[in-house]
């Protein structure tokens, strides 16, 4: 054990004597948080800018505009037809509503028409306005039908409807989708950095073989097993610090609502650290040089992170890719987080955890097999 600690101290000293490595290993994971924040952080409480062109001078059209003006998070701007296209195209307006000359008349006839909604931002923006507006128009149309064609009764009912003093209690439900998306992006980026870090540490073995210090080392009482174990230990230590640092920063500093407890996340990601260490060791055991190991590692890390859905929601990916993703350990980490966010207990997700353990076991077994057959000093002359 003393030998291993001695090796660990040396690896840490040599690695972190380069200040750039401190930035890479401990600054890198935080970039994921920043990207997530940039992507999702500013989407709260947005005000919708709606342009209005009212070509109808009747009361119903005026009241409709008045109704829109009183909606929460909606800013109504009166515009004219000549500037409509320009304002929509440049994004100054999210959408525009054109009330035609016969708009009020169509309502009174019970068949709402002569209303046009213009937008280039799609349903995400227009559905909110559409829903409120159509409900309002449906109510007025219903009054017309209820008045049975009697203009006096309709007017009375309409006036009362406009002056009605409803008591409205507003309950705001927490929108967890933003937190979930930010969690996926933060953790997805962290998984990639962990894989890269583990790869860098495993590459030290190749570099030491190339510069012959490896053979000098194993000519001392240190054996190959202890040497590799020390390397894995440092790799694991760095990755665990990355995990704790990222979780602390995300939860305590950036206040990202992960909806999963700190320790559940820490345990899950530590399990992935084991997978990363195993994978990088396997890559090194197969590679013929440190350059080949580096290239192979990048070739595995980046595509597997993309396929596993580290940078975008899993549901957005095509079905075929979703099936392929199941062969990536990153997917099982993200899937477990998703399940935990849905309220499943940590214990009930033991199968996911077993799958991750199986990945680590397979990688380590392959490495042991290959290392046992690759201890030929001639390869590195």
């Amino acid at each position: 054990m003393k030998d291993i600690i001695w090796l660990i101290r040396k690896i840490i000293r040599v690695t972190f004597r380069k200040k750039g490595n401190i930035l890479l290993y401990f600054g890198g994971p935080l970039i994921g948080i920043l990207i997530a924040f940039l992507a999702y952080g500013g989407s709260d409480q947005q005000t919708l800018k709606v342009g209005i062109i009212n070509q109808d001078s009747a009361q119903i059209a005026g009241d409709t505009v008045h109704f829109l003006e009183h909606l929460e998070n909606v800013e109504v701007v009166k515009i004219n037809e000549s500037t409509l296209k320009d304002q929509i195209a440049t994004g100054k307006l999210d959408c525009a509503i054109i009330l035609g000359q016969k708009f009020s008349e169509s309502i009174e006839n019970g068949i709402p028409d002569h209303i046009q909604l213009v937008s280039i931002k799609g349903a995400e923006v227009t559905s909110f306005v559409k829903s409120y507006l159509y409900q309002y128009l449906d109510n007025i149309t219903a009054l017309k039908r209820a008045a049975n064609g009697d203009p006096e009764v309709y007017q009375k009912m309409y006036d009362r409807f406009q002056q009605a003093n409803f008591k409205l209690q507003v309950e705001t439900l927490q929108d967890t989708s933003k937190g979930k998306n930010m969690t996926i992006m933060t953790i997805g980026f962290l998984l990639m950095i962990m894989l890269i870090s583990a790869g860098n540490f495993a590459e030290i073995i190749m570099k030491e073989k190339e510069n012959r210090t490896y053979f000098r080392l194993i000519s001392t009482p240190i054996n190959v097993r202890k040497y590799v174990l020390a390397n894995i230990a440092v790799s694991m230590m760095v990755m665990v610090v990355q995990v704790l640092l990222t979780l602390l920063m995300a939860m305590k500093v950036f206040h990202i609502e992960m909806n999963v407890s700190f320790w559940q996340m820490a345990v899950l990601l530590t399990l992935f650290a084991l997978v990363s260490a195993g994978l990088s060791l396997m890559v090194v055991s197969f590679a013929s040089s440190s350059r080949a190991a580096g290239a192979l590692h990048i070739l595995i890390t980046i595509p597997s992170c993309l396929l596993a859905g580290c940078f975008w929601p899993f549901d957005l990916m095509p079905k075929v890719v979703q099936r392929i993703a199941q062969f990536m350990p990153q997917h099982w980490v993200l899937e477990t987080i998703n399940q935990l966010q849905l309220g499943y207990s940590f214990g009930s997700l033991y199968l996911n955890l077993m799958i991750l353990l199986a990945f680590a076991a397979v990688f380590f077994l392959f490495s042991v097999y290959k290392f046992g057959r690759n201890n030929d000093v001639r390869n590195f002359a």
Partner: protein
Amino acid sequence: MKVLEVKNLTKKFDGFIAVDNISLSINEGEIFGLLGPNGAGKSTTINLIAGLLRSSEGEIKILGKNNMKHSRYTKMNIGIVPQDLAIYEDLTAFENVKFFAGLYGLRGTELTDRVQEALEFVGLLDMQRAYPKNFSGGMKRRLNIACAIAHRPKLIIMDEPTVGIDPHSRNYILQSIHKLNEMGCTIIYTSHYMEEVEEICTRISIMDHGKVIAEGTKEQLIAIITNTKDIWIEVKSVEQIDIEKIKEINGVKTVSLDKNVIKINSEIGINNLNNILLYLMNQKVEIGSLEEREPNLETVFLTLTGRNLRD
């Protein structure tokens, strides 16, 4: 006391025999030279002795113990100075020696004292806080040696420790080897420089094609070829010379060219000097000087292997 015993050692790599049934025995206090051209099997033998490779057949005993069964014990008593520098550029000279010495279990003040002792021994104590990237080739070689001796091994294996360094550092290293030997260390020394081996080794083994082809003191090895003499002829140009033609002259055993010097090893008792000179005159070769020399290790090596050591 025998520090190293090698019995019937063989190492095969996928059918290729790198070391072929060799036996060696090295006594305490010897400086044992291992000579051989590239590919002779010297490095493989050293790797086998150091426990870096497992032998295909045979046995190696260090201080009476099998080097595979008692690898920790045997490794604790060996210090290896590898041919390629095995030092960390990102650690200072002090940290390098400290790290390697620590792998042999040294800790605390004992470790610090031994590190400083080793650095002082190789003349780098003043440079202990400097990084090897700022060192000359000779200084790096000396640091390489310091890393191997700080734990005070009984057997030191030096694989070409003077390759590519300046004469001053070479002399320093050769003197250090003498000093280590006087301090009780047994040394195995390999080199391409015949004069170094002649100067420092008490016993020499010559390897070729994985086999030990001769072994003994310098005098014993030269005695193998007492029936020959060396003739060195310095010429102005060598273009017209056909070595094979000289070899055909009666009594000539080996011929080699070293720049403008034709080195001929010839049997004693056969007067063939006239024929050699006649051949050179016929070829219109201008002769600068002619010297008849006593055979040395290089002659022995050439006679036994048919090659120069640096071929």
